[in-house]
């Protein structure tokens, strides 16, 4: 009896240590994950916040030597580029994901699509820029917002496709059977039941893809090209925040360096706001107890 108590006592000590060790490790990992994000954000605030003012959002860039000036052209340009990219990348990506999970499961074509998506995901973004340059910019003989949006849109496709597929596969088969058993046609069941059940995950995938291409510079260098004036014309060159930041950051002027920091800060804040907004809008109708 006595020895048994001893063992359990020793066990209890060991469990206490193991428990706290595991908790400690988990907390440490969490901090390690969050730290870079917080560090970057704090550093951006420190470097960029002082150059932020109302003019930054309303004025065009000032010539070298003149103080002030803003990035309104780049903010508008990024919005236009991302809208074009999302309109292109999200529908194509979601549709491809639906095909992979619901219609082509196990087929040759779906393996090919999946493989292509994974390869596309690994293609360096500068290569995407060159590809779109030769496919759209050269034949059109002009840099354009459209070409930039296409380049970013293509970059969104693999991420959206693969997350859509994964999320749809997580929907239990019993849900599909319930819909089919009610006499709902298959296409309708896929769109209204399966996709809807998976929609929180699918939206997360779209936002990830969106946030990723929002900060891309390389694919825009020879497609959107940049434009010192505000423009929403899809057939003309357009500015983008990452392009403007790149241009200002490699310049020799202190004033431009400060504006580049402010631009980076604005870019990050805008991405966070856009993601939060989409989350808010899409989770408004969620019911009590919905899983």
């Amino acid at each position, binding site marked *: 009896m006595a020895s048994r108590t001893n063992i359990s006592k020793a066990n209890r000590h060991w469990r206490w240590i193991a428990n706290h060790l595991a908790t400690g490790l988990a907390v440490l990992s969490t901090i390690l994950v969050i730290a870079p994000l917080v560090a970057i954000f704090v550093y951006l605030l420190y470097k960029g916040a002082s150059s932020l003012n109302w003019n930054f959002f309303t004025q065009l860039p000032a010539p070298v030597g003149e103080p002030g000036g803003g990035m309104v052209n780049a903010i508008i340009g990024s919005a236009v580029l991302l809208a074009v990219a999302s309109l292109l990348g999200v529908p194509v990506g979601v549709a491809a994901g639906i095909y992979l999970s619901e219609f082509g499961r196990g087929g040759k074509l779906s393996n090919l699509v999946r493989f292509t998506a994974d390869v596309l995901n690994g293609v360096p973004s500068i290569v995407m820029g060159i590809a779109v340059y030769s496919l759209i910019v050269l034949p059109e003989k002009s840099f354009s917002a459209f070409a930039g949006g296409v380049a970013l849109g293509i970059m969104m496709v693999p991420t959206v496709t693969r997350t859509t597929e994964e999320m749809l596969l997580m929907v239990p088969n019993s849900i599909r*059977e*319930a*819909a*089919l*058993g*009610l006499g*709902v046609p298959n296409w309708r069941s896929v769109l209204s039941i399966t996709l809807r*059940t998976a*929609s929180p995950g699918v939206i997360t995938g779209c936002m990830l893809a969106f946030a990723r291409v929002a900060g891309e510079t390389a694919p825009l260098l020879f497609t959107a090209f940049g434009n010192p004036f505000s423009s929403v014309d899809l057939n003309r060159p357009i500015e983008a925040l990452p392009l403007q930041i790149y241009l200002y950051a490699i310049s020799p002027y202190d004033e431009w360096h400060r504006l580049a920091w402010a631009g980076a800060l604005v870019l990050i804040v805008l991405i966070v706001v856009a993601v939060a907004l989409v989350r808010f809008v899409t989770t408004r109708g969620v019911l009590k*107890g919905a899983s």
Partner: protein
Amino acid sequence: MGVSIEVTGLNAWYGANHTLQDITLHIPANEATALIGPSGCGKSTFVRCLNRMHETNPIAKVTGDVKVGGMDIYSEISAVEVRRRIGMVFQRPNPFPTMSIYDNVASGLRLNGFRNRRVLDEVVERSLKHAALWDEVKDDLKKKSGASLSGGQQQRLCIARALAVDPEVLLMDEPASALDPVSTAKIEDLIFQLKSQYTIVIVTHNMQQAARVAERTGFFLNGKLVEFDTTHKIFTNPGDKRTEDYITGRFG
């Protein structure tokens, strides 16, 4: 009103596995018919052949005739049409998790393009009353998700959802096997009331359940229909030795 089901020479396969062999039986209208048998004997496959859910599995194959209300469901109408006329309740409750209680019940009509709000309201109320769930959920029809209900309530919600499209036949694949005894009793009461209006086919592992709810019982073994007769006959004086062995608990 319910209709009768006439099955002739039905064979079904999963890949190379011949799960149903030459099944012939007549299921009368407006009665509950129970199918019993050990696991893997083909009774679930059989009911899935009755509303063409079997063929949703890519490796599945089926031959033979199934006539529901005199109509051959494999040649005269589409699978979608068949399933609209033959409702199904599954083993595990499967409400649509993103939908409210109301939307779950209305889903069958809505997804087929039916939009009239007033009629939908009526159908939802009538179906939930039919499924004996109305009093428990009437206050949060549109506020609560179908997935927030208890297991027994979820299963009755699924029954209401199946009833809302006004089927002629209701197939139930072990509808109470995942439920506690109280919920099971409620489902059985329900079957009792529903069979005046629908033809009910219920697969069950539980022989007492078959004896309680069904007029007729079929015994399946290894993909064959061993015996099909009135429930009374099957449980008191079975014609086949294997049926007797099964219901007296000698195997299975």
